C-alpha cells in the first residue's frame, strides 16, 4: 500500500516535471527559431518555418508537452495539474531573461506572478475532476 502510493507520487512528480519543462523549453526553442526579424506572411512561409531546426525542436517538445499532459491528466486531477504547472509562466520568463536576454521590468514580473496565481485559482472552482467521485455528487 505505502509502496504503491510512493510509487504513484514519484510517477506524478516526474510526469509533472516533464509537462512543465517540455512546455517552457518548447516555447523557448520556438522563439529561438523565430527572432524579431522573421518574415511570416504567406502560408508557405509558415510551413517552411516549421522545418527550421530550432522551430522543429520546439514543436517536438510541444508535442511531448501535450502527450505528457494528457498522460498526467489520466490519473491526476485538473485541480492539481493546473496550479502546479502554472509555475511554467515564471519558468518561461526566467528562460527569456537568462537565455534570450529579454529585459523584464518589475511591472512585468508582478504581472507574471499575478497570472500564475490567477491560473491556480481558476482551477479551484468548478473544474471537473478527471476521476469521477461518486460520493461528491449528491
Amino acid at each position, binding site marked *: 500500500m505505502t509502496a504503491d502510493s510512493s510509487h504513484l507520487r514519484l510517477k506524478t512528480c516526474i510526469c509533472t516535471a516533464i509537462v512543465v519543462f517540455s512546455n517552457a523549453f518548447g*516555447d*523557448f526553442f*520556438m*522563439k529561438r527559431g*523565430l*527572432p*524579431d526579424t*522573421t518574415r*511570416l506572411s504567406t502560408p508557405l512561409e*509558415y510551413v517552411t*518555418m516549421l522545418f527550421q531546426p530550432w*522551430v522543429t525542436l520546439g514543436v517536438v517538445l510541444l508535442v511531448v508537452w501535450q502527450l505528457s499532459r494528457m498522460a498526467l491528466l489520466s490519473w491526476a486531477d485538473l485541480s492539481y495539474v493546473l496550479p502546479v504547472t502554472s509555475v511554467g*509562466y515564471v519558468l*518561461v*520568463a526566467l*528562460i*527569456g*531573461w537568462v537565455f*534570450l536576454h*529579454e529585459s*523584464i*521590468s518589475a*511591472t*512585468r514580473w*508582478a*504581472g*507574471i*506572478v*499575478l*497570472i*500564475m*496565481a*490567477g*491560473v*491556480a*485559482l*481558476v*482551477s*479551484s*472552482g*468548478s*473544474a471537473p475532476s478527471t476521476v469521477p467521485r461518486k460520493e461528491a455528487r449528491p
Partner: protein
Amino acid sequence: MKWLLVLLMVAATTVGEVLQAAGMRRHGEIHDFRPGAISRAIALLARNRFVIGSVIAMAVSFFAFMKLLSMTDLSFAVPVSAVTYVMETVLAKYVLKERVNALRWAGATLVVCGVTLVSL
C-alpha cells in the same frame, strides 16, 4: 496587430478545446488502451466533425502563436496566452451553463490584471 493575434490565438484555442470536449464526449470514454483499439479509436475520431473542427482551430491557434512569437518577447507572448482561462471561464458560465464559483471569478480577474501589467 499583436493584440489582434492574441485575440485570434485565444479565440481559436477556446473554440478548439470546446469542440474537442464535445467530440470526445460524442465518441464516449476510451477504456481500451491496446495499440489496435487505440488506432481504431483514432480512425473513428478522424471522421468526427467536432474533432476535425478542433484540430483546425488548434492549428489556427498554433500559427497565430508562431506569428506572435516572431514579433514579441517570449516573456510577453506566453503570459498573455493565459487570457484563454478567462475566456473559458466566461464560456463555461454563459454557454455551457456550468456553475462558476467566486474563487474561479477571482482567478480570472487576477489573470486579467496580470496580463494588463505584463503588457505595460
